[in-house]
């Protein structure tokens, strides 16, 4: 019994030792970094060392990955759908109605709103990608950018609006003026109507 046990112990110990010895001397080859789509992505792990020396080596990832958000503000119609879809409310949009159609996006949608504020708080973002799905003009996308370090937390709030405060004020005033003119015209029309009736 004890002889058998001892023999087993030695035999299995040797099995393990042979395995580690193979790895000890098989570590001459460094890992070649290949994208996950490559056929031998997992086979690679069987030979040589596995470490990816990150800043020096990076696994290639698709250009449209599932990483940080980016907004092409020229294509945005400020519909606010993304902000409504966001489960963690990390998108904050403020719109100003334009006095007229202000142009077209690259896919032909007419823009009628100015984006006074378009902030995404990347510290809150949970990378679900729902905002990219609902966007009618596909202006909000997820990129391949996954490592970003900042010194202050508020630097993680990405600001995509390109409007200056002056422009914002100007557009607001213009819209209010148009509204006032419309109201005046409406009241004048109403008065004329009432005057005609009496």
């Amino acid at each position, binding site marked *: 019994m*004890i002889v058998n046990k*001892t023999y087993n112990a030695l035999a299995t*110990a040797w099995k*393990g*030792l042979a*395995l*580690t*010895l193979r*790895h*000890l*001397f098989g*570590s001459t080859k*460094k890992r070649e970094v290949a994208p996950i789509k490559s056929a031998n992505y997992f086979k690679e*792990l069987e030979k*040589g*060392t*596995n*470490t990816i*020396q990150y800043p020096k080596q990076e696994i290639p990832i698709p250009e449209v990955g599932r990483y940080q958000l980016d907004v092409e503000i020229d294509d945005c119609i400020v519909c606010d759908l993304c902000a409504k879809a966001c489960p963690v409310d990390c998108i904050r949009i403020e719109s100003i109605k334009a006095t007229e159609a202000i142009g077209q996006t690259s896919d032909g949608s007419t823009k009628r709103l100015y984006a006074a504020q378009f902030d995404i708080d990347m510290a809150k973002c949970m990378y679900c990608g729902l905002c990219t799905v609902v966007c009618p003009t596909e202006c909000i996308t997820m990129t391949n950018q996954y490592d970003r370090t900042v010194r202050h937390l508020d630097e993680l709030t990405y600001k995509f609006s390109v409007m200056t405060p002056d422009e914002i004020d100007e557009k607001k005033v213009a819209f209010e003026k148009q509204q006032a003119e419309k109201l005046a015209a409406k009241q004048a029309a109403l008065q004329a109507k009432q005057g005609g009736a009496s």
Partner: protein
Amino acid sequence: MHRNSKFTLSFYIIHILVAIGLFAFIAMFTLFAVYAERKVSAFIQDRLGPTETGKFGSLQTLADIVKLLQKELITPAAADKWLFMLAPIIIFVAVYMGFAALPWGPGLVPSQTNIGLYYIFAIISIETLGILMAGWGSNNKFSILGAMRSAAQIISYEIPAGFALISAVMITQTLDLQAAAVQQGILSVEKVKFLGAWDVTHIGGLLSWNIFRAPHLIVAFVIYFIASLAESNRAPFDIPEAESELVSGFHTEYTGLRFAFVFLAEYSMMFLVSMLAVILFLGAWNTPFPNMGVVKLADWTTGAAWGIAWTIIKTLGLVGVQMWIRWTLPRLRIDQLMNLCWKVLTPLAFACMIISGIWRLWVM
């Protein structure tokens, strides 16, 4: 005015220099061994190990020790201050003093004493005392558990280790390690027989090593090697430090230089037990190459410098095996540990001792 001519100033200076040299060697070895251990473990696990500090990370351990030297020496408020302070020193000094009786080459031994092996065994047992002091002095449950385990383990494994060594001593008939070393090569004054039959006194090399003079010493060597792993608290017998259970066992509370001393002791213990195995079983500083006719390989590769080189090569080989085993085998449970010691290794060591007696009487 009588003066003993042996104890002159130069006598003391030489001995102090030898002691300093040994310490420097141990420190350098520790730096190298920690680096080697990290690289070996990394490669075994398909990692890279240290790569950034110096070429291939070679300056990593140097950077580590510089960092450790700068660290604060924290003594826990509830600790027994004297025990806590003294323990790392005792642990290290006990191992360091063991080196005094180890021969490095023909005529090269810090202290040639006729009870060398006995002295080494006695002095490295003091390490247990230091470990107990560290565990008790820390006033920490992990430390005391680690220390108790360590004491139980070291005391148990000294028995098979001791009997394995005794079976080698019965063949060499001396406790003087230098004398035991001389016997295992071409410098031997007595007859050396390969497997007790073939006279290889002038052939030397591998054939005259103790494990080939009496083949049952191979078993004794394996027993001693396994027991020495336990004595230096190395995996798979590292239950005193068992990271997954005891944080890091008896040295949980140590910081800075004190921690460095405990570490230094562990690695010098590795070297010491391996060197002892080399001296008693693997031909000490003798060359592995035999004389073959006109090709006198053994004659060419024997000498003081060769001796040091062979000792270091063989010992580092064994240290390498210790590392290889550490990164392969899982830790033994305490009952398995005691089972192995008392039910397997001790009876086998006794058997080896009996065979040694028979061998010495009727074969050699």
